């Protein structure tokens, strides 16, 4: 069963803001979560604070990651 992106993002919103972490570490924190929940492996380019730290970019990434190629 794939976790719906909307449900995941609702849960993600419940996470407390990490204290004292730089943007790169925050991105890695999010990447660990995404890979675990969606069973994907992100590329180094995707382990980017600009992607994983931005809600819109994150949603787009997840939508791509959970879409089964037709």
């Amino acid at each position, binding site marked *: *069963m*794939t*976790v719906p992106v909307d*449900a995941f993002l*609702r*849960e993600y919103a*419940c*996470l*407390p803001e990490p*204290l*004292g*972490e730089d943007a*790169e*570490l925050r991105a*890695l*924190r*999010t*990447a*660990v*979560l995404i*890979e*675990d*929940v969606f069973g994907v*492996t992100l*590329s*180094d380019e995707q*382990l980017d604070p600009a992607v994983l730290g931005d809600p819109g970019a994150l949603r787009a990434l997840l939508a791509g990651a959970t879409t089964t190629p037709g």
Partner: protein
Amino acid sequence: MCGICGVVTADATPDPSLVAAMMATLSHRGPDGSGYVIDHGAVLGQTRLAIIDTVGGVQPLANEDESLWVVFNGEIFNYLELAEELRDRGHRFRTASDTEVIVHAFEEWGEDAFNRFNGQWAIALWDRTRRRLVLSRDRLGVRPLYYRLTPHGLSFASEVKAIFADPAVPRQLDPAGLREVFTAWSTVAPRTPFAGIAQLPPGHVATWTASGFSSRSYWRAEFPAQGCEPGQDLEENAAGLRERLIRATRLRFERSDVPVGAYLSGGIDSSVTTAVIRNFTDAPLDTFSLRFADADFDEGCYQQLMAQRLGTTHHDVVVSARDIAEVFPDVVYHAESPLLRSAPAPLFLLSRLVRRNGYKVVVTGEGADEVLGGYDIYREARVRAFWARDPASARRGRAAELLYPWMAMNPSQAPAFARSFFGMDLDLADPAMSHRPRWNTTAALQSMLTAGLRAELVATPATDLAAAMPAAAETWDPLARAQWLELATLLPGYILASQGDRMLMANSVEGRFPFLDPDVVAFANALPARHKLFGLEEKFVLKHAFRDLVPEEILRRPKQPYRAPDAASFFSGGTPDWLDDVLSPSALLAAGVFEPRQVAGLVQKARARSRRFGNTDNMRMLAVLSTQLLHQQFIAGNPAGRGGPPPAPVHVFDLRERGTA
């Protein structure tokens, strides 16, 4: 809560005075009285800590026609509901105790009775009609139960020292048991540190008759296949967990005829159970906390915050390194195992505080880390899997800093440490990948063993701890597999034993564990892994479920694993009197476990308080000290020698004149 013991034989009736001597060694488990039943071929004894039906619940206790007798250590929390059901089925009760429920339930349902119990127990039932002894232990191993098989019978007890009350029993350390401790931090049942002494595994029932002994599992931890968890909604799962935890906590707080207190560690788990007691029951509440003189280990500010918020009557004990060193021999005497940490010692002092304040029952938060994904080992496994998925990544290495913030403050050390420790055994196909670093690091202790002992171990294949995992585990989430390993090894072998039952019962205090309630465990096991460990956020659903009752400061504080000063306790500010005795060349030679030259080097390093004295050295030092104390007290000496008479009043039931049932 009590101590139980007994002897059954296929030939002559066991000597009642031997069982009385066994009971005497268990006085600390049951100082309120004792009793034994004598039958042809069986004597069963018990020392009692009176908690439910303090007057009527004297043991041993029988069914209506006295064909079935029980001795029992623990609590059956749903005894009122079971008694009602059993009365409806025609059973007649003489007491208001949970003990009596056991005999009627066993009459009614046989071994299926154990699956109906919500509780924590070690039980021995003597069936006079079928001349059989039935032993049972609760699902997760809260209560201990040891036994020794002989060609003609069996002896059993809550603690090994009671079995050693028989001077004819050989007392030896088991090399294979020591290896298990020096790998997984504890032995894994049925193995124990002592040769010839077994323990009934958690969730098992065993039967002895003159024709043999057999043991089978009546319960085991199960998890759904990854992605097939029945509930996927966080709000619903949080509500379900909250409802079950409130019920489990109330059951453990309210089902007692004596006052019940609560441990308050300053972490989330005990804050949840204490807040539930305060908000969902009416009784006044005393809370008990452990503080450390060393600020690095102290959680006093969080304990105070919670106690003040809840308005409890709060007590604490401040433990110094010296305190740990002084009580450590007693700690080993009660733990009956080598220890790789000093952490049980402060818990021994905490239960003493409880008892001195007139309490003999406490609710505690143990089990939450195992059941709801709270341990660092689970988070480490997530990061290691993250690395293993793309070993060539240039960016993933820094993820180690997410585990331990101190790494970010020591960037020069962090990458090397991460590579050498967390980077070991990155095999995603290994069902025990989560635990390999711990086991491999701990196994380094074995290099200190004597050549003779190591040669002996070469001839005995080591148990593969992961091999016992059910075949279905292949379909589980990796977190579930890691949880299974914790539930099968460290929880019963160390957390509930050396840090749990043994340190509590040493001071005649019973612990109750809401997070280990069977409904809570079954519900938690069925949750999606992400609701337990959301990325690296531990106990995610628990925090969500109780965010209204637990202050933000505690919910958001970095997890602080319970630790105490280890080797430093024994070498800073002088050494304790007993230390030179157990580390003397003659004592090391007598025990034959550790290579004296290696011990000498380790001690020298500890005395110099070397800055290079790291985690493995701490484990080594604790392993040496505790094993030497164990040998001194249990092998060179006999631990049964400490016992006086069994606690009064002593109730004796002699069935020999009544014939067989």
